[in-house]
């Protein structure tokens, strides 16, 4: 687990990308991780069914914040329908190996909230699909 906290993860934790809010977002969602209270809100700007801009806000552990920051870097230009189908590997490919089972919900929180924003209701936990 200590191998997980690599420098680029800590960089995303301390300097999250796309952090903040949008004026008049077209879609948004927010949720907490029941395990630890980590909180993430995702806001989307849409253009012709595709994500034209994205921001997230919230607080929590390095795993939830860095996972969300890295995930959102790759979603601009993506169709909502494709976002709704993102697998949990979309997160795991970014953060790599080393997340213990008890912390998996922290890693999946951002993906769940992003998908919730895309489908307009609370999505399932990606690790329970």
């Amino acid at each position, binding site marked *: 687990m*200590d191998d997980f906290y690599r420098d680029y993860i800590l960089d995303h934790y301390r300097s999250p990308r796309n952090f903040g809010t949008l004026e008049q977002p077209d879609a948004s969602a927010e949720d907490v991780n029941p395990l*630890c209270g980590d909180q993430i809100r995702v806001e989307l700007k849409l253009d012709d069914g595709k994500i034209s801009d994205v921001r997230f806000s919230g607080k*929590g*552990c390095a795993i939830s914040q860095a996972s969300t920051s890295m995930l959102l870097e790759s979603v601009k230009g993506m169709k909502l329908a494709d976002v709704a189908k993102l697998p949990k590997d979309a997160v795991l490919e970014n953060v790599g190996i080393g997340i*213990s089972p008890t*912390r998996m919900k922290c890693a999946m929180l951002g993906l769940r909230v992003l998908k919730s924003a895309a489908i307009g209701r609370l999505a399932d936990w990606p690790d329970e699909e």
Partner: protein
Amino acid sequence: MTQTLRTDAKVERIIADFPILARPTSRGKRLVYLDSAATSQKPRAVIQALVDYYEQYNANIHRGVYEIAQRATDEYEQARVKLARFIGAKTSEVVWVRNTTEAINLVAYSWGDRHIASGDAILLTELEHHSDLVPWQLLAARTGAELRFIPVDARGIHILDDLDRLLDGCKLVAISHVSNTLGTIAPVETIIPRAHAAGAVVLVDGAQGAPHLPLDVKALDADFYAFSGHKMLGPTGIGCLYGKREILEAMPPFLSGGDMIRKVEYTQTTFADPPRRFEAGTSNIADAIAFGVAIDYLDALGMPWVREHERALTGYALERLATLEARGLAIYGPRDPERSSGVISFNFADIHPHDLASILDTEGICIRAGHHCTMPLMEKSGWAATARASFYIYNTEADVDALYEGLEKAARVFHV
């Protein structure tokens, strides 16, 4: 006071009584268990008592006339006698429940619904665990009563300046003996007589009190005292509600059914006397008996020794951890081990407590991270979460040193 815990032969013998402490983690590390405020480890004798019941005399109680049923009944009732003696109560004042939460709910429904009315006040403290808060919120919602709170200062110490005003019109005071989040020992000796003088009944949430402090409920003059077995070397699923005899006698049943009756007719029932009036259905027999064995274990150590051991260890830990303050360690709660009972809450630089707990876990160190079931206190204090280390009889200075080294490792991993 500088008790040399590291070389204490008594603690070495205690550690040898706990099988789990001899098992290395999957990474081959020594288990450093610093989460006894969540649940304590169990000595071999307690585990063996469970096995003995199921292997030798498993039978239902209070009914069978055969030998093993008689033995089960005797051992179960003997455990009640031990518990009563341990807390300074009469045997008839000890009600078996599942845990502290159930004990408090029993009082909230059975006593609360009878005695609390619209306009009455219920006085709690800002430190309460959700288990000593939510049942009273529901009682207040059912009855129209008002909830009030004894405030605490930035170190989690109770502020009693306004106590008389807070007690005015108050029918019930419910306070935790020891804060599970900060370790603060509540000034129950001051609050209880003043609550009584104001006409209020007092419930003490002893989930973190009974395991750690010498206890005499009669000297304390608490009307109710609730605690769980699993935080004091016993199994999960068994706890105790102490209530003054005359108060319990006037209370209606909480749950109803078998074993809590005197006479049942098709349309009406007369109920058994306390404590059995509050023990409907087949009890948690094995766990009650094993809880009695846990009490034997604590009795043999002596609760004054338990308190002194934890006081000394908390003092050592506070001293040791304070050296990390210059590097961003923030220690919450009382800084005086006289006012604290074996719990240290902290945060380290910008490392989230869950990340801290994960890094310590790789070293075999078990701490708790989160809101500790005290969300209003976290909100009031401006902490999103804290890390918490808590001690018990089997912890040593070596465990504190391991925590210190684990924190140094976390600092290296997070470059702080």
